């Protein structure tokens, strides 16, 4: 979905990179509101779904991190073509932020800045967290989780919170490690995260150019999206400020 800059202003175009699975559903309205706001401020913004997610072609079993990095490059090229902008800022949330870091090092035309909101630093830990939420959700909504174990080895997971986790994808997630993400960005990087989560980016040496401590908590995997919309103003403000800096 393309949100064209209003007022004919020419500021860097913004590519919005989705998180994964339930987190992407949770983030959908927030990204729409953010894109509208950026457009009003003069940034053309593009939202899109990776292959096998959202409205895009492909089913759950087709998800693939390497392919998604290619999708980001294609979306980047499309946004450059449609906006006429030579300068792009990428904004990613959660796994989308991790992908932004990885993709920034590979693409031929680099973004002028990447803005990372609570990037996933460990695929293993992330999958473990998804499983925990999967069990909690089933217990909460059905009263039981059937025969499912309370904890599993992440590499054996094949689904979580409504989405398939094909074997090759889980293997790719296992390779998503802290040092790889922290060392990936190939352009100025702004990280937005709760105070505790910023430490990884600040110590022992800064891995990002700038930071925003976002104290407003955001429950990324909540299933309450069915009956409540959540667009925290503080997050919109922090991202908008980081894009326009």
């Amino acid at each position, binding site marked *: *979905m393309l949100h064209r800059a209003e007022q004919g202003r020419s500021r860097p175009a913004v590519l919005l990179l989705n998180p994964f699975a339930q987190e992407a559903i949770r983030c959908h309205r927030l990204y729409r509101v953010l894109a509208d706001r950026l457009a009003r401020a003069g940034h053309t913004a593009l939202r899109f779904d990776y292959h096998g997610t959202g409205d895009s072609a492909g089913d759950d079993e087709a998800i693939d991190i390497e392919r998604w990095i290619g999708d980001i490059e294609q979306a980047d090229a499309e946004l450059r073509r449609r906006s006429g902008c030579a300068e792009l800022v990428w904004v990613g949330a959660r796994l989308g932020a991790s992908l932004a870091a990885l993709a920034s090092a590979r693409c031929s035309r680099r973004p002028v800045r990447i803005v990372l909101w609570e990037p996933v630093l460990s695929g293993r830990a992330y999958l473990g967290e998804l499983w925990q939420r999967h069990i909690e959700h089933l*217990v909460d909504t059905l009263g039981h989780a059937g025969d499912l174990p309370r904890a599993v080895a992440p590499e054996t997971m094949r689904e979580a919170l409504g989405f398939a986790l094909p074997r090759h994808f889980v293997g790719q997630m296992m390779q998503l490690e802290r040092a790889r993400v922290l060392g990936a960005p190939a352009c100025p990087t702004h990280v937005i995260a709760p105070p505790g989560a910023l430490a990884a980016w600040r110590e022992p040496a800064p891995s990002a150019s700038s930071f925003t401590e976002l104290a407003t908590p955001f429950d990324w995997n909540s299933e309450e999206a069915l009956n409540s919309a959540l667009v925290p103003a503080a997050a919109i403000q922090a991202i908008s400020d980081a894009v326009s800096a």
Partner: protein
Amino acid sequence: MNEATLQFGPEGHLVGTLTLPDTRGAGIACLLPNAGVIHRIGPHRFNVKLARWLAAAGFPVMRFDLAGVGDSAMPRSAPPYPERVLEAMRAAMAVVEREANVRRFIVVGICSGADNAFRLAAVEPRVVGVVLIDGFAYPTAWTNWHRIRRRLGHGPAATVRTFITRRIGLLRQRLAGSGVAAPDPGGRPHPPRAEYAQTMQALVDRGVRVLLIHTGSLLRRYSYQQQFHDTFGALPFASRVEVAFCPEIDHTVTTLAAQRQLLALIGAWTSALETPAAMQDATDRQAAAA
């Protein structure tokens, strides 16, 4: 199969994705409105899977965002919610009629989507079938008994584990800033029982096919297979309404097994419909006779 995301509506404020089957000429299409505020991909992307399944079976499918939900904007005129919903659903029908050359629709809705499907069917003669997933439900004197029996049926150890897991989940939500409990989706406003019965009677008298699916998440509203017939069995329409109670499926169709089960259930129901072409022929005959 061909998919296109379109802007439509009197002010161009609505957004939907139309999935067209490879084999054109079907006389019936399917509408998939939002479940709550989840955008048009549906809970856990179920609406995408369902749309593609139905399109492979020959049905054009429109999954779309109501005004103010997902990618759709609020109209400048901002009519009250019920009118706004009907306006959006009729606008979606107009797009499908134009793009797929159909005049008859089935509507599949989850939660508030089921409520909206029911209300549309009540006033829109082009609707010939509805699948209402966790739609309106009217508890009987036995509902609570079956709910408790079902909850305890997993054994005392499971009950204790459930209690502890729920407490941990609540604590996590509180720490993550969403400690306010989500409103019970089964607690949304229901029409009075008599009004519901009257509408349902009118639907089946009109020849509308009705499938009610109740999941295992809203047991305070619906907790056993026979509940619908205990409530409405004495009324003529009851025997003409299909009901499926699926306690192993949750309200947002979370596990992949639940998704497959629900797809199979809806798929079997649509397969048992008259063929789209036959339904269109019947409609044409009715129109000619009139």
